[in-house]
């Protein structure tokens, strides 16, 4: 009798553990796939300055909104269910309100978890995204006008964005001034996208991963090679 009872409870125990395992596995994989699905930012959503790389950020941010409330320009928003960014995380849309690049970076200062990296002490080092001319057809400068707005509003004018004079292919005797972004300097604040004159901006700030390419590590660019440097120093030696 006692043995039978023990057998039954043992079997019941195994049964209920197996069931708990199934439930955990089922709910876990549903949640994990949902997380995977919603972990990519929409191209128009940018993270606040100092945000850790996206996968780390999604593990670090407590979704408290302290950064949002610290922002004096109401740039940042806290995503809700089905918003452009994963639920609860802070983001901004440059076309609506860009980041004004505060000196003291109050958003980073407010962050309790370090999801916004406190090591960022110079706002010029922020990499919220990278500005890209996404459509040459709608850029007024590339149509031969002198709009220049993106260039003028850039807080790092002449460093992050420059105007390059080119011959205008449509009119033999005129030049055009092409806005060119230096992706190594651009902070991604979004002032250019915000100010861009056309109905839909010709210049947009994209999250870094979406804006930038990468050459294979094993690639050797000639101008960076030892050979080129030797040739250059030899050349300059001759000149002097």
């Amino acid at each position, binding site marked *: 009798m006692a043995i039978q009872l023990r057998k039954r409870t043992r079997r019941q125990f195994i049964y209920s553990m197996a069931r708990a395992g199934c439930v955990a596995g089922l709910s876990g994989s549903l949640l994990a796939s949902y997380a995977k699905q919603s972990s990519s930012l929409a191209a128009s959503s940018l993270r606040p300055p100092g945000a850790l790389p996206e996968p780390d950020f999604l593990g670090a941010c407590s979704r*408290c909104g302290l950064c949002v409330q610290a922002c004096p320009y109401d740039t940042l928003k806290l995503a809700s*269910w*089905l918003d452009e960014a994963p639920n*609860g995380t802070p983001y901004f849309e440059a076309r609506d309100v860009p980041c004004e690049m505060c000196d003291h970076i109050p958003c980073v200062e407010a962050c*309790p978890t370090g999801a916004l990296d406190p090591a960022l002490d110079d706002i010029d080092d922020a990499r919220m995204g990278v500005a890209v001319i996404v459509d040459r057809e709608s850029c007024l400068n590339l149509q031969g006008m002198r709009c220049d707005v993106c260039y003028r509003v850039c807080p790092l004018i002449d460093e992050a964005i420059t105007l390059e004079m080119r011959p205008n292919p449509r009119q033999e005797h005129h030049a055009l001034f092409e806005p060119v972004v230096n992706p190594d300097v651009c902070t991604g604040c979004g002032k250019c996208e915000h100010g861009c004159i056309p109905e839909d901006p010709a210049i947009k700030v994209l999250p870094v991963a979406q804006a930038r390419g990468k050459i294979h590590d094993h690639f050797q660019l000639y101008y960076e090679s030892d050979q080129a440097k030797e040739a250059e120093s030899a050349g300059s030696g001759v000149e002097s």
Partner: protein
Amino acid sequence: MKRSVGSKSRESHGFWYANRFLILRRFSQFSILALFLLGPLFGLWIMRGNLSSSRILDTVPLTDPFVFTQIVLSGHVPEINAIIGVVLVVFFYMLVGGRVFCSWVCPVNMITDLAGWLRRKYSINTTSKLDSGFRRVLLVTVLLLPLVTGYVVWELVNPVSLMHRGIIFGMGYGWLMLLALFLFDLFIVRRGWCGHVCPMGAFYAQLGRKRALVIDAYQRDQCDDCADCYLVCPEPQVLNQPLKSKSDSTIVSSIDCTNCGRCIDVCEPKVFRFSRDPDTGQA
């Protein structure tokens, strides 16, 4: 007409006595929301942030231990403010004990209480069987997910933080999830969310294991089996042990008890009271 739950207590002891803890709880829940809303609405920054992390008067940090645990498990080492914050909150809940978060702070509790009240009022008795241990399985799952994926996965869907955040920062489509939760409780499973699913409640139950504040059925010999307490209790199974078992202890010892005190309110013969000692049950 059918007698409503708690009416005997109200007739004998008056409206205030029969609803004391309910009113105090609502007051607590609304005050906490109000403190967080004074900033965004009137520029009076007593509390910043939301229940996940906040700052009192721009100095004292607070961090929710459930969110904090998920962050740590995802592999991130939080900054000092989050650590100080979580120590303060854990200290508070361990001191008071039980699921006081659930019944005195959590905003979702107001939704599930409403569903529970409507169920009683309109005698909606449909319910599907869902094991109340499901929440513990889900809790383990939810704590394993950050380990596996590196993301704080539950906070993508957690309706508790979604609701609190939504009230302060804008609800967006968040109301869709809250509506689903309300309907789930109203028609599908009685006390479905808080009593069966919510891993956050299960987490706080573990945190408050050693309870300083307990419900004590010290006059259980007065019980007249009206079952009003069973009908209002969000976790009715916790009442069996002190009321129906032959055990010596009159304490509601289950960690599932939310310390809401509603059983004290509705009991006409005054069987229950809050007690500060889980061992002897002395007030």
